[in-house]
Structures are given as structure tokens and as C-alpha cells.
């Protein structure tokens, strides 16, 4: 493998890792607050992709010409809102009544919710794969002239294209958008968790729910907020994923969902930077395996990674081992 090829695969891997990171964040946040794995999270991701499918033809035509990027943002934001609402609804209806019950009960319910979304989706949208609309034109970023102040966005893109051409890499618009959006969302999330009142409450609940409740934090609000936030990220991930792999079906959430979970464990479940790093590692590893002689085992590599991490460092990269308190 030449070094250009290596970097090309690295870029492909990074953009795949961006999706995994976005989904993994939802797993990790919910786990941090409730100590439970939201099995239905991968399906919220699927619903995100379907929101994009149904919203794009209704929203995008209203934004023409130079306003088109704003239309993409509008589709993205409304999808994130719908998914956040869905996440909050799921928690309210299915998980909240069971919060004091044994963990296994909640887990089984989560599996039930996941199956309901998958097969209810099959019932509503049809089981056959659907072509995802072309929200962003997918083309390699190329040099198209010097910087000009009249069209700042496209001239910046052109400069980047020039750079990519010089080093011999191909980066497509969708890859760039996926990575940019993922980074922006990560920054926004970090800000929310570190600086806002609800974010601080979230961390407090994650640290010690009983003490947090005694300090006057409303646990229900925090849990709802966490579900909303995680589901919004999954929704955004769903759209980005559907842009790169533009064939969507109601069962598409299962495998990316499980892989994102692996990413969350890899980074250390409960840790937000861990989820991002885990997602990126998984994406890169998977792309390299996909480009090698073992490409048919691509889907299995995530689980091999999982076994490895569980054997050697069960707390994950950023996690800390905790002794169980009785």
C-alpha cells in the first residue's frame, strides 16, 4: 500500500468513523446517566435517515441557488428535532415506568422497542430499500480557481481541492460534510455538557444520581434531556450515513447501531470523548480491513475488536474500572 493509498483509506475511514462516533455518543450518554444500554438507539438512527428521505423533497425546493446549503441545514435540524422528540417519547413511555425494576426487564423492553421501530418501520415505509435523495451533490472536491470574496464558500472549497489534488487524494463533498458536521456537533455537545446548567446536571446525575437528586436536580428532566440529545445526534448521523450509502431500509439501523455500541465500549462507555475516539478508530480499522484481502469479514471486525478490548481493557480507552459497591 502506497502512502497516498494509505491516506486515502484513512480519509474514507475517518468519514465512516464520524457516523459511528455520532451514534456512539448517544449510547454513551444514556449509559452514563441511567447505566443501561438503549438498544433502540440504532433504530432512532434509522428513523433519522427516513426523516431525511421524507423531508428533503418537502423542504429543499424552498431553498434555491445560493440558499441551498441552508436547506440542507433545515433538513438536518428538523430531522434532529423529530428524532429528539422520538427519543424522549420512547424514554417516557417504555423506560421510565420500569426505572426501579431489575435491569434485565429494562433491557428486554429496550429490545422490544428496537424491534418495534424496525418492523413497525417496515410496516409503515415498506421493507424494500429506498434511494435516498441527493441532498448534497456528491463530487470530488477540485481546484476551481483562486480565492474570491464574492463566493467565499466555494472558493474555500476550491483551495482545499487544490491541496487535495497536490497530495493526490480524493475527498468527496459528502465526506467533507460528514466530517465537518460531526466535528461541529461534537463541539456543540462538549459545550452543552461542560458549560450549560443541564449539562452540569447531567454529569452530576451520571456521577451519583442519589446525591444529585438530593441537591435538587430533577432526574426526570435530565434523563429526558439526555435521551433527546443522544437521539438528535443519532438522527444527524442517520442523514449523513444515508448520504454516503444512499439506500435506506427499516433494518439499516441494526448493524451500525451495534457497531457504534462497540465504538462506545472501545472508548470507554460513559465517556463522551471516548465515544468519539472509539467511533473514529472503528471506522478507520473497518475501512482498512474492507480494503484488504479480508474484505468479506468487514462486518465481523468490529466484534473481534470488542473481544480484544474486553479481554485486555474492559473499561475501554478512556474509562476507569470501578469496583462494584454493595
Amino acid at each position, binding site marked *: 500500500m502506497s502512502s497516498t493509498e494509505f491516506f486515502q483509506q484513512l480519509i474514507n475511514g475517518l468519514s465512516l468513523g464520524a457516523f459511528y462516533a455520532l451514534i456512539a455518543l448517544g449510547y454513551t450518554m444514556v449509559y452514563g446517566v441511567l447505566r443501561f444500554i438503549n438498544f433502540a438507539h440504532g433504530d432512532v438512527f434509522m428513523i433519522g435517515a427516513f426523516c431525511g428521505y421524507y423531508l428533503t423533497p418537502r423542504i429543499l425546493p424552498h431553498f434555491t441557488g445560493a440558499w441551498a446549503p441552508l436547506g440542507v441545514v433545515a433538513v438536518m435540524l428538523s430531522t434532529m428535532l423529530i428524532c429528539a422528540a422520538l427519543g424522549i417519547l420512547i424514554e417516557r413511555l417504555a423506560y421510565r415506568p420500569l426505572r426501579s425494576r*431489575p*435491569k*434485565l426487564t*429494562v433491557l*428486554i423492553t429496550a429490545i422490544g*422497542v428496537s424491534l418495534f421501530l424496525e418492523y413497525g418501520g417496515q410496516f409503515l415505509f415498506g421493507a424494500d430499500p429506498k434511494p435516498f435523495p441527493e441532498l448534497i451533490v456528491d463530487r470530488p472536491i477540485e481546484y476551481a480557481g483562486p480565492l474570491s470574496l464574492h463566493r467565499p464558500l466555494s472558493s474555500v472549497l476550491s483551495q482545499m481541492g487544490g491541496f487535495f489534488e497536490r497530495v493526490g487524494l480524493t475527498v468527496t463533498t459528502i465526506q467533507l460534510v460528514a466530517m465537518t458536521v460531526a466535528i461541529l456537533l461534537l463541539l456543540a455537545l462538549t459545550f452543552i455538557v461542560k458549560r450549560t446548567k443541564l449539562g452540569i446536571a447531567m454529569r452530576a446525575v451520571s456521577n451519583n444520581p442519589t446525591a444529585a437528586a438530593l441537591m435538587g436536580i430533577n432526574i426526570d428532566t435530565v434523563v429526558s434531556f439526555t435521551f433527546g440529545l443522544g437521539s438528535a445526534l443519532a438522527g444527524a448521523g442517520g442523514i449523513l450515513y444515508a448520504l454516503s450509502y444512499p439506500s435506506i431500509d427499516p433494518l439499516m439501523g441494526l448493524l451500525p447501531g*451495534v457497531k457504534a455500541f*462497540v465504538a462506545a465500549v472501545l472508548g470507554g462507555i460513559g465517556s463522551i470523548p471516548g465515544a468519539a475516539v472509539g467511533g473514529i478508530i472503528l471506522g478507520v480499522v473497518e475501512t482498512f480491513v474492507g480494503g484488504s484481502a479480508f474484505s*468479506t469479514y468487514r462486518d465481523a471486525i468490529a466484534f473481534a475488536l470488542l473481544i480484544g478490548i474486553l479481554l485486555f481493557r*474492559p473499561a475501554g480507552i478512556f474509562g476507569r474500572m470501578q469496583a462494584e459497591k454493595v
Partner: protein
Amino acid sequence: MKYRHIKKFALLGAILLSALASHFSGAINSYYLQVVLFIGINITLAVSLNLINGYTGQFSLGHAGFMAIGAYVAAYLSTEHSVGLFRLFGGANIFSVSLLFIGVLLAGGLAAAVVGLIVGVPSLRLKGDYLAIVTLGFGEIIRVLIQNTDAVGGPRGYSGIAGYTTLFWTYSVAALTIYVVVSLIDSTYGRGFLTVRDDEVAAEAVGINTTRYKVTAFVLGAFFAGVAGGLYAHSTTYINPSGFDFQRSIEIVIMVILGGMGSTAGVAFAAIVLTLLLEYLRFVSGYEWLPEIVRRIAANRMIIYSLVLIALMLLRPQGLFGRLPRRGSLSK
């Protein structure tokens, strides 16, 4: 008569009864016979999964993977390696076929048990929800591996398997599985499984090797799932990797949950009811007089499954026949 003698007589009786039923099975319509065979296979699967999920409290979602291993190993051996054995015993007579079938079923079960051990040791260090996803992943890996194995047809599936499975084999295995699981749980050693489920910390504190118990349950469950897979392969005579997917695992899990985790009788009963219900739904989806929406839901059985799961957990988490943990127990 002592309880443990009753169990042995029940096992013997069940085997004799299935032999008798098998003798007259020619009189049954072949479709009904297939359904009855599936019921027996599902009982084996559900009761063996109950040992892991119900009695030991480890939530496995990969039972179909072990079933797949058993099915493929047994089918491969009986198809490719039967000639020599038959030559030794002068053709395919009842003796040589029985010997071969027992051999391949055992081989399938042992292969699944070995994989269960490989899967179990790293993943059983994890708790509940982690384990569920890991086993789900393993189920998928096994499927991907089979899909990439050309010797057994890869994604095209494996056909031309001899139809050795009869009522006798199916129900003898089911009875044996129930016997083994019940005897195990009733034994002094077997109480350890319940302890691990009820309170892992307390179990460790009184000197129970929890990991060993979990792995034992897992390996034993995988073994019987493998045997059930062998029976399945030799009753349908054609298997393909997508028949052992996540949905199949969920089906078995639902039998366990519906019957009541930790109740062998309940789980066996649920296996019977659910298998019959599924077959019945096939007819319902074809009834012209029903409204379109009912027929479409009947055709998509996973929607019904998911609603059953959620409703059960909200209303009766112990399942139809299970018992709630004792009041005042420490487990959370």
C-alpha cells in the same frame, strides 16, 4: 417413589412415547408433521436458552448462532462422510442411519459447545446488557463466517441434506434436554446457577465461582442448541445462513421470556404455543375477509413479538409462568 426416580421414568416414558408416535407418523400429513417437529426443536432451543437466560440470569441473544453451528456441522458430516460408515454396516439400514445421526448430532452439539466456550470466556466477564450485545455480535460473526465458507454453500445455502429427523429423535432430544436442565437445577451444584442470577456479589462472597457457573451454563446451552440445529437441518433438508439470523435468536428469547425466565415447564409450553401461533398467523395473513391492515400485521410477526415483549415487561415481567423474586431479596 422418590422425586429423582420420577424424573428418570418420565424421561424414559417420553422417549418411548416419541418412538411410538414416530412409528405412526406416516399417517400424519407431512405439513403437520413438519410443524410438530419444529415444536420439538423449539422446545429444545427454548429450554436450553432458559438455562442461560433464565436460571443463570445471563442474557444471551446469540442462540441462533450456536444452532447454526450445530446445523452446519451435522449437515456437512452426514452429507459428506456417510458413505464410508454405510459401507461398513452394509448400506443405509436403520442401525447405520441411527448411528450416523447420533454421531452427527453429537458432533454438531460439541462444535457449538466449543464455540460457546470460546465466546463465553471473554464475554461472560460482562454483566447483563453488555453480554446481550456481545452475544448478538457473535451470532452475526458466526453467520458471516458461514456465509464465507464455500464448502457449505456460502450464501447460497446447503442443500441435499438427508431427512433423518423423525418424531422419535426430535422428542427424545427435547425430553433429554428438559431432563438434563431440570436435574441440573435441582442438584446441589445446580443451585449455584440460581445464586449467580439472584445476587452475584453475594454468590461470590460465599465462595461460588460465578464465572465458572456462567460459562458452564453457556456451554451446556450452546451444546443443546447445536443438537437442535442438527435436528433442524435434517428435517428441512436445506439450510442457509440467513435462516439463523438475529430474528431467529429473538424468537427463542421470546419463548423464554413469555414462558417465564427460570421456569422449564413454562418455557416449553411457550415454545409450543408460539410455534403454533406462528403457523396460524401464516393462514391469517391469507384470509381474504380480514381487513388489509390485520393481514399485513399478521404477515409481519416481528411487530407482534415486539409488542408482546414490551407489554409483558410493563405488565408481567416474570412471564406467564415465572415467579417473581422473593420479597426482601437483595437483588436489584
